[in-house]
């Protein structure tokens, strides 16, 4: 910039009152304080649960994870059926919800239907997530179980030689929990996958069409892979929800302390165990419940780490 000698340069600072400056500083401290509060809360919860769980950890060790006794009379506790139930019900839910959820997300992100219809449908799918889980549980008991029981009996009669269908359904059971969970996590998978699909740049779509790709080739070879990390993120969030879901599962799973291969059999999950036992528990039983809680927390942590690894490995290219 050329400045003529008689031209004065305006100072570029803005005059700010000491009050405004102090408010700025205070705001930074305030937000920083809130952020650390959350971290502190998380750490204190983890430490507290860990301390409370330590008597049970010391007494039962890793055997807690692999044995099936929950006996308040003799004070022997282990949670294999619950851990098994948590994993089976969650993966059953994923098995059902992932294909449907991604399919719905594709349908609602492409221009298969006019936008006027698309918007309300998207809203309705997201509204599924707003139904309280106890309502799902109630619906599960009075509507879903009667329907599924008859269908389940048919499946047991014709496919009973498969271990998964080897017992006759008696009403509540693992399969009801899996189906309820699938419905509950469907909106999470759909909403997040749809956002990821919509965010794929138009240029990529045009590039694929320009090379002579059909609509399906464009969707499956370009758009879905480009949205992969978002889709996996949605699935993992859904899995976390399914593993932690308590009320609806407790209402429909049967709460039996056994790990059965048959999906028609009754079972329980870690969260249903906690919900059923906390009220009358004391002493070592509370400690064992805390131990089970830590196992559940570790399960979700492992799932999330695995998801990160998958996403990073795919995104490297």
């Amino acid at each position: 910039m050329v400045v003529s000698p008689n031209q004065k340069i305006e100072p570029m600072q803005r005059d700010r009152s000491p009050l405004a400056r102090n408010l700025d500083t205070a705001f930074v401290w305030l937000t920083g304080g809130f952020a650390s509060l959350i971290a502190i809360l998380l750490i204190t919860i983890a430490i507290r649960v860990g301390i409370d769980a330590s008597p049970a950890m010391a007494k039962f060790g890793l055997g807690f994870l692999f044995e099936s006794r929950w006996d308040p009379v003799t004070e022997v506790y282990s949670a294999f059926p619950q851990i098994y139930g948590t994993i089976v019900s969650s993966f059953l839910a994923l098995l059902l919800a992932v294909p449907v959820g991604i399919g719905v997300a594709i349908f609602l992100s492409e221009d298969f239907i006019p936008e006027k219809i698309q918007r309300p449908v998207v809203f309705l799918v997201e509204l599924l997530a707003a139904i309280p889980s106890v309502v799902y549980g109630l619906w599960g008991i009075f509507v879903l179980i009667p329907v599924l029981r008859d269908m389940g009996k048919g499946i047991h009669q014709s496919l009973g030689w498969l271990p998964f269908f080897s017992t006759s359904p008696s009403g509540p059971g693992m399969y009801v929990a899996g189906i309820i969970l699938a419905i509950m996590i469907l909106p999470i998978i759909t909403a997040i996958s749809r956002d990821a699909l919509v965010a794929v740049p138009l240029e990529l779509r045009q590039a694929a069409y320009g090379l002579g790709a059909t609509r399906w080739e464009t969707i499956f070879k370009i758009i879905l892979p480009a949205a992969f990390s978002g889709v996996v993120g949605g699935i993992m969030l859904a899995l976390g929800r399914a593993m932690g879901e308590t009320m609806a599962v407790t209402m429909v799973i049967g709460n039996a302390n056994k790990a059965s291969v048959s999906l028609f059999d009754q079972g329980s999950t870690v969260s249903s165990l906690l919900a059923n036992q906390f009220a009358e528990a004391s002493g070592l039983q509370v400690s064992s419940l805390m131990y089970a809680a830590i196992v559940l927390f570790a399960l979700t942590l492992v799932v999330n780490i695995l998801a990160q690894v998958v996403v990073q490995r795919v995104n490297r290219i």
Partner: protein
Amino acid sequence: MVTSSHPQIQPILSSKDANIYYGNFLAVRDVTIDIPKNSITAFIGPSGCGKSTVLRCFNRLNDLIKTFKMRGRMNYHGQDLYSPEIDPVAVRRQIGMVFQKPNPFPKSIYDNIAFGPRLVNYKGDMDELVERSLRGSALWDEVKDKLNESGLALSGGQQQRLCIARAIAMQPDVILMDEPCSALDPISTLKVEDLLQELKEKYTIVIVTHNMQQASRASDYTAFFNVEQTDRGRTGHIVEYDRTEVIFQNPQQQATQSYVSGRFG
């Protein structure tokens, strides 16, 4: 208005009295143009004059826009591109496209090139095709040691040449280019222009450009588009189409003269 077509050589693409609509809005009118084989034809003109719209009609990419309508004829080797029997997917395999913004897929360099051939179950040696395509777009020497790295890791100019290689890999007849250099620096632009001269040995190229020097340097034929305000919006049309040296040195129309000499609007 004069729209002259070029009779000397058998045209590969030709359009006759084509009117292009978006809904009820007439975007471009009376497009009559013959594009000769193994030549470079440039579309020039002010923004909004319909150059890109016409370009995208030639490989039916405008079909993706719901409100798009074309009335009139567009021929490719004499067959009607818009006849109901024509599969737009097959058209796009013959008539490739390079876009304004480099748009490599978020895949490796190799997979970017192999994407198109895999769609048609290319039976030949894929490694050889990838190398040939990358050599064809003058990118091979720069990327031969990192074919498994992401196409997005390349510079803008390299990405655009990757997109050209991707188009070449389909062994198309025609390559349509929509302002391929507008996002590139001058050195990359020159590289792409040099490339065009090599490509026209094998392919027919139609290029939309805002860069007048580029049109005069690189093309054999030039079509000048202009736009006029009517009661139903801004409608583009071809003012003049001729050999590039005629358009730039001895244009028949006053509007062309003004535009190419920079005294426009």
